[in-house]
């Protein structure tokens, strides 16, 4: 990942060159797929962040969406909207070109200079704080409902989410000694395991679904050594359900030295759940809690 910096350092950056080339080809391929669909005349909202877009749609305001960012993939029809790219590297002119009058964005959009320019163009910008709790999701819904001027719908959705979450978490509760140890792996690139510690969306979801996060030694997502994986002794491996290095075949996965010795490998227990559903913390999180709980305890996993 520092290949490019190294290139500036005058040392061979062939890996960087190839990565960039492939990246560019991918980007071009992706852009070729983007169809400019006929915009709804009332559409004026740019939504940034998967869970924000999902909340807009659940509030019945999907028709007002004019564009989205790369992380917005649900509901499926939003993928037809123009994509302004990755939320941390927005292009100021690109954002203005989709002509939004309101930008709803998850915390942490950038770069700051781009946001300054967007504000200078008189586009309303509402930041939606991240959430890892039921209350947090409800706050997101309230803020988005207010920005879209649909407070009644927001109230109803917030109440529904509150009920569903409470029930899902309650139904998932189990005695301490009965809980399975779950290891969430963000990626297994090059045989190196990038796992979730505490304070992440994955950690929160595992606990809500009646599991125990097998890794509690560090906050955030980090690469961990093979031996630490063995020590964590997970009963189940949890991964995102998508291609690339995330979608390693089971045989390959359980053949990794780190995983081989864990209880999870003995039972071949691996779960793959859609990333946005699992980590988005939005209207579908209650479903994610139920799904994960069910997969952990009811499917003989």
């Amino acid at each position, binding site marked *: 990942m520092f290949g490019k910096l190294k290139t500036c350092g005058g040392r061979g950056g062939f890996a960087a060159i190839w990565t*960039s080339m492939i990246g560019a080809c991918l980007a071009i391929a*992706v852009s070729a797929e983007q169809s400019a669909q006929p915009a709804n005349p009332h559409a004026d909202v740019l939504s940034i962040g998967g869970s924000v877009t999902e909340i807009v749609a659940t509030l019945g305001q999907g028709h007002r969406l004019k564009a989205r960012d790369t992380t917005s993939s649900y509901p499926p029809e939003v993928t037809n909207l123009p994509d*302004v790219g990755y939320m941390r*590297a927005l292009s100021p002119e690109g954002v203005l070109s989709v002509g939004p009058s309101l930008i709803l964005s998850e915390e942490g959009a950038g770069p700051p200079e781009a946001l300054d320019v967007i504000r200078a163009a008189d586009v309303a910008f509402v930041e939606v704080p991240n959430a890892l709790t039921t209350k947090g999701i409800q706050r997101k819904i309230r803020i988005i409902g207010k920005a879209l001027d649909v407070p009644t719908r927001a109230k109803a959705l917030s109440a529904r989410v509150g009920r569903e979450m409470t029930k899902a978490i309650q139904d998932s509760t189990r005695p301490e000694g009965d809980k399975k140890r779950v290891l969430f792996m963000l990626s297994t690139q090059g045989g190196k395991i990038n796992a979730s510690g505490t304070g992440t969306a994955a950690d929160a979801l595992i606990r809500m679904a009646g599991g125990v996060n097998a890794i509690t030694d560090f906050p955030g997502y980090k690469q961990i050594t093979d031996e630490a994986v063995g020590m964590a002794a997970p009963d189940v491996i949890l991964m995102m359900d998508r291609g690339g290095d995330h979608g390693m075949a089971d045989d390959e996965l359980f053949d990794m030295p780190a995983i081989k010795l864990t209880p999870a490998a003995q039972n071949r227990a691996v779960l793959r759940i859609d990333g946005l559903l699992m980590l988005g913390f939005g209207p579908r999180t209650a479903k994610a809690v139920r799904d994960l709980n069910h997969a952990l305890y009811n499917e003989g996993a």
Partner: protein
Amino acid sequence: MSAITDIAPAATDRLSRARALHWALAAALLLTAAISLQVGATGVTLSAMLGKLAQGETLTQMERVVLWDIRLPRLAMGLLVGAALAVSGAAMQGLFRNPLADPGIVGVGAGAGLGAILAIVLGALLPAWLIDLTGNQLTPVAAFLGGWGSTLLLYRVSTRHGRTSVATMLLAGIALGALAGALSGILVYIADDRQLRDLTFWGLGSLAGASWAKVLAAGPMILLAVITSLTLGRGLNGLALGEATAAHIGIDVQRMKSIAILAVAAATGAAVAVSGGIGFIGIVVPHLLRLASGPDHRPLILNSALLGAILLVLADVIARVIIAPAELPIGIVTAVLGAPVFLWILLKRRGLVEL
């Protein structure tokens, strides 16, 4: 006219051709600048705006923002950064008498990279007043300080009794690069997911964060460094014959080395600070020019500034429009355009291609 270029009529011929290139490149630069102001994701065009202004109409706020807050500062930054990288490349190649040297050799790249990483990963731990002091520009400021610091350190290490050893500098640069890389690696471990993404994007370079504040911060330093470099041509020509010979024909070699290194550190440090890691411009531009009009450094430095600016602004135009409304990091564009050219140059040097 120095004695060196009077040796053969062919050389004078080439020199006049290289000087004629100045004008061609200057014209191309104007054209490139116009293109860069003309195109963009919003479909607002320079020609339409000029037409409006000529009619005495006022611009809409959108037009004003796009022209004044987005495209103009971006153009200015592209011109400055492109010129800085290409001129630094030409100066380093002359100084090290190696056509494959680039500004990174004096440790600017590694140092600036380390500075940027420190800012991205540890920035949150700093007291608020310090962050306010840098006006939200902590990463560029840190990158600049890192680039400067590492260059001065290298210069100190490789200078003994008032003589700078270019070979020592090269080796020390590699060591320093490795050290900076290792420290960066430790910080990558500390970084959270979002910071890692920021690091990746910083490393690919972008002009998306262009603003007048950044242009004003980096501009004077880059201009000063580029103008200073323009005076190095004769000295670098002399140096091509070896240090002793250069000294015999009346060139103060040590003074020239110091000036060249400081100019490169200033230009590259400022450029990397405002635009992240942009590769290849520093190597490819002087090379193309040497192929076109010979190795004489006097026209080469000015031509490098012009062509570097042209290529970077063009790369930025591509980066902005190819996947609109999103944009590609410009480092990807320069690598995709620059890497094949670079490989071709290498193969040509080995006599593997006939072109």
